[in-house]
């Protein structure tokens, strides 16, 4: 079992957490309410006990005074044996003091000789003093029906003639104190209500700017960098709002700068790609048209010379030259197509892809490529080029890395977009890891191209193979 100290500590901590968890508004309200109510109650109690003490003291003095005055006055009546006269004095005194419950005079044998009571004096009151000697003044409090009763006994003539007993009720006193207490409590409640109102206003004053600040933060988190916190007050919270706004300005600035850089990068990339493509096109065309035609001319010319000469040794040499020219022509044609297939410009994406797939089959004889291209009309030239390069990359990757036997390519026009899929049934790879490693320039360039076209590229890969999905808007 846990030691009590530790449990207590745990409980305190729990309470602390609970208190810390409530809103600032509740905290402030709670503090103010607790203070007002606490202070009010403490003051009421304090006043009540103070009043009680002084009133009781005053009453004791009065009781003492009445008793000793009566003791002096009773002595004459007793000496003269004028008991009815004595009773008249007692009654007059009793009616003069509203809080006097009873007055009576006993002889030395403690027998009542005169009393303010109409009938007989109750025995239990007479016997209250019991063993107390008659020659001493004393004071006794006891509980009776109407509340506390203070009983004062005063010996007459040193006890020789008996004693005077005066009973004072403190019911009026209690009533008075209760009235004061009630008033104090009422004041406490009113002050508390006022405190709550004041506290509410105060908390609104304090929490309103904070709430506004929180709302601004949420807007910023949702991506609205133009949101600014309002400056309500010139206090610490106002300073916080100002600092927050400065931070936002800074954030907005760097965000804009970044966006600008990104836009510039995209523009540069676009221009790079199109420049590269233009350059390839130019060189391919030059190779194809100029060098190719020249080589063909040489070939035809050699054929002509061969036909016109009967010289055998010369014929052999011409034949060798024709062979070289023909080979050179093949090389030029291949180079030109690899740089940029003219089919892409002349016939479109489908033809260019078909052509590339047959080339791929030559490079990777074990791989079977199946292309299904459904495009009702030619796509914009830039889109055709980008898609061609992208699919070229995907197909080459599949042939080179997947280890699969077949590659499927689907290109289809949809409403408003073109979708292309390249799929292999090879071993697959960890797309995320490869991307993160940044080792694959191919993957990166495919994504870049797709993004430049405003489209997206997705790659799904597992043990059963890899599929590249590209969708670009038309």
């Amino acid at each position, binding site marked *: 079992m846990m030691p009590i100290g530790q449990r207590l500590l745990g409980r305190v901590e729990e309470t602390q957490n609970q208190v810390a968890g409530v809103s600032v508004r509740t905290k402030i309200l709670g503090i103010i309410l607790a203070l007002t109510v606490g202070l009010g109650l403490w003051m009421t109690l304090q006043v009540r006990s103070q009043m009680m003490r002084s009133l009781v003291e005053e009453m004791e003095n009065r009781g003492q005074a009445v008793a000793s005055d009566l003791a002096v006055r009773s002595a004459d009546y007793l000496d003269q044996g004028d008991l009815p006269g004595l009773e008249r004095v007692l009654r007059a005194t009793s009616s003069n003091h509203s809080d006097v419950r009873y007055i009576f005079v006993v002889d030395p044998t403690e027998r009542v000789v005169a009393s303010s009571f109409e009938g007989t004096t109750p025995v239990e009151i007479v016997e209250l003093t019991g063993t107390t000697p008659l020659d001493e003044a004393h004071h006794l409090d006891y509980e009776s029906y109407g509340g506390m009763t203070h009983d004062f006994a005063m010996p007459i003539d040193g006890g020789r003639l008996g004693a005077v007993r005066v009973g004072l009720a403190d019911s009026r006193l209690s009533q008075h104190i209760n009235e004061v207490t009630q008033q104090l409590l009422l004041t406490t409640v009113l002050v508390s209500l006022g405190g709550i109102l004041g506290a509410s206003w105060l908390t609104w004053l304090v929490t309103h700017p904070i709430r506004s600040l929180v709302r601004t933060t949420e807007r910023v988190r949702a991506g609205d960098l133009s949101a600014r916190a309002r400056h309500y007050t010139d206090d610490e919270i106002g300073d916080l709002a100002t600092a927050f706004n400065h931070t936002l300005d800074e954030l907005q600035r760097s965000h804009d700068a970044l966006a600008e850089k990104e836009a510039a990068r995209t523009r540069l990339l676009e221009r790079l790609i199109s420049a590269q493509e233009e350059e390839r096109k130019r060189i391919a065309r030059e190779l*194809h*048209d100029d060098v*190719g*035609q*020249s080589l*063909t*001319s*040489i*070939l*035809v*010319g*050699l*054929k*002509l010379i061969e*036909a*016109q000469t009967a010289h055998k040794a010369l014929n052999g040499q011409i034949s060798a030259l*024709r062979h070289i020219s*023909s080979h050179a*022509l*093949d090389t030029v*044609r291949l180079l030109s197509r690899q740089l940029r*297939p*003219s*089919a892409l410009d*002349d*016939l479109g994406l*489908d*033809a260019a892809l*078909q*052509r590339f797939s*047959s080339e791929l089959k030559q490079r990777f004889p074990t791989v*079977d490529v*199946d*292309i*299904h291209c*459904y495009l009702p009309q030619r796509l914009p030239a830039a889109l055709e080029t980008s898609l061609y390069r992208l699919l070229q990359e995907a197909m080459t990757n599949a042939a080179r890395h997947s280890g699969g*036997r*077949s*590659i*499927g*390519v*689907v290109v*289809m026009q*949809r409403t408003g977009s073109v*979708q292309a*899929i390249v*799929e292999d*049934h090879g071993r697959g790879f960890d797309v995320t890891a490869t991307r993160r490693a940044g080792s694959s320039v191919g993957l990166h360039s495919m994504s870049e191209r797709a993004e430049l076209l405003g489209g997206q590229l*997705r790659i*799904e890969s*597992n043990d*059963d193979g890899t*599929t590249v*999905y590209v969708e670009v808007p038309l």
Partner: protein
Amino acid sequence: MSPHEIRILLVDDHAVLRAGLNALLNAQPDLVVVGEAGDGQAAIEQAERLRPDLILLDLNMPRLNGLDALAELRRCVPQSRILVLTMHDDESYLRQVLAAGGAGYLLKQAADKELLSAIRTVYAGGTFLHSEHAHALLQPAPTADSRQDEALAALSDREREVLQLIALGYSNKEIAEQLILSVKTVETYKQRVMTKLNLSSRAALVRFALRHGLLDDLLA
């Protein structure tokens, strides 16, 4: 001008090549070059004027390119046979040329060996193709056969559904989400469909689905 000579119009944007060809052809007793043109537009004008027996046409030319010129020439001078002489060995070009009404397709790298026989074949009313090309063209175009129809009937509803979604271009992940299956299960369905239909790629599946009208109600 002997009535047996084949009258030829040379169309190529490369003057040196034209000169070489001119010399080579004119050296033949049965061939005569009656005209030359450096671009498609000039070729049409020349052809209308000269009405040659045969037009030797390059595909890459400024102004009107070869393929467009070919179609136009067929319209203007339908009696002239057209032999295309080009560096493009793409099947796609060949198909386009044949579709446009070309009678022969010769690669420039084989010009020295095959040009003369090609001209004579085409003039005689035949078609001249490079042997590799002829082979490619003879490949039967894939058609739906009755066995595939049976296989289609053998597909379960789920398999058919997966096939449709694949053909619509959905990724395996998307199919899995749509049919509330795991990606692995989708993969299994796909393999099963491919086995049942005896197809080996997504492209083949798409083609199959289109041909069998599986997407008709979905694409409409």
